[in-house]
């Protein structure tokens, strides 16, 4: 088990770069996000990209609606959020079923694997079930070396088969957040 800090510079992992490269390869153009420490490197890369538009949201459900509009306008997108945001999306996720648009979300997990903060546990525990009840296929990556292939598979089924897909990035992968006084 390893720990993480909130600052992105302390994460030397290469998997955020792999995810960025996959999103580029699949011609993802709109990347709505609610910030999370686990996604901070990827968000930095998106905001520095000339082909992607990072869209900071006030709540995660905005991102689901944004991606429906993006698809109607001919662009692909991917929603970045933390597990606690998944519950905020539930009604808006109905868009992924009725439009059958290529919905991909990458979710950093909290509330598992050595969690310190009990407030993260209820939503983290139900994240996968919420997605599945909402008609979203769920894939999960728990180790750095598998992130690339799992995200790639998720992107393929989302964009090629219009199969709404969530990739959960385990807290084990990201590292347990350490709280110190």
């Amino acid at each position, binding site marked *: 088990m390893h720990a993480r800090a909130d600052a992105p510079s302390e994460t030397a992992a290469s998997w955020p770069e792999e995810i960025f490269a996959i999103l580029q390869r699949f011609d993802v153009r709109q990347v709505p996000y609610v910030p999370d420490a686990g996604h901070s490197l990827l968000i930095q890369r998106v905001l520095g990209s000339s082909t992607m538009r990072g869209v900071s949201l006030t709540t995660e459900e905005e991102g689901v609606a944004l991606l429906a509009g993006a698809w109607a306008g*001919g662009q692909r997108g991917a929603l970045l959020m933390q597990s606690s945001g998944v519950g905020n999306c539930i009604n808006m996720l109905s868009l992924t079923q009725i439009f059958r648009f290529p919905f991909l979300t990458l979710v950093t997990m909290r509330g598992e694997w050595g969690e310190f903060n009990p407030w993260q546990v209820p939503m983290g525990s139900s994240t996968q079930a919420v997605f599945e009840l909402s008609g979203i296929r769920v894939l999960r990556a728990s180790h750095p070396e598998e992130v690339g292939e799992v995200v790639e598979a998720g992107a393929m089924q989302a964009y090629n088969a219009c199969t709404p897909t969530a990739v959960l990035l385990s807290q084990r992968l990201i590292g347990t957040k350490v709280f110190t006084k």
Partner: protein
Amino acid sequence: MSKANLLDRRAVVSGLLANRKDAIVVGGLGASTYDMAAAGDHDRNFYLWGAMGGAVMIGLGLALAQPKLPVVVITGDGEMLMGMGSLATVGLQKPANLTIVVLDNEAYGETGGQVSHTAAAADLVGVAKACGIGHVSAMTTMAEVEAFAPALQDVTSGPRFASVKIDGANLERVLSSRDANFIVNRIRGSLGFEPI
């Protein structure tokens, strides 16, 4: 909440869309979608029958994807109140081709006319302005609506936000298609995109 001389919502929407040209128009859940249908079906009408609170964000996704085309969101005060945070998101992204029009009857007409927050307290124009949307307007006359309509075509100086006070009449529903796949693929087709 009742005031004299409030506008007829169908006249407002017909007036706004009479010369829409290539614009893509998103209609919020409820009466706004019926108003759009009443103004005339169109390949680029994005009708919403659900996803309350999502109309502005769907418009933003379209506006970012098609920056050279006018994108117009027409929605009600209740739908706008549910997605008020999206005004902050639009204020940050500043899509120059996006216009948001709220048809404000100060009530939830679709569910029995319960009063909404705009009847007594909430000022959506003020919210939009405070969120960084530069061009905001509050309209109460058809002359103002008609003078505003050409601005929908302007894809260089948005985003714009307008509130139009309308009367609370519950008009006969004019039903648009509610098949989301049809609606979205028709828009994509009109933009030159093929089905997968």
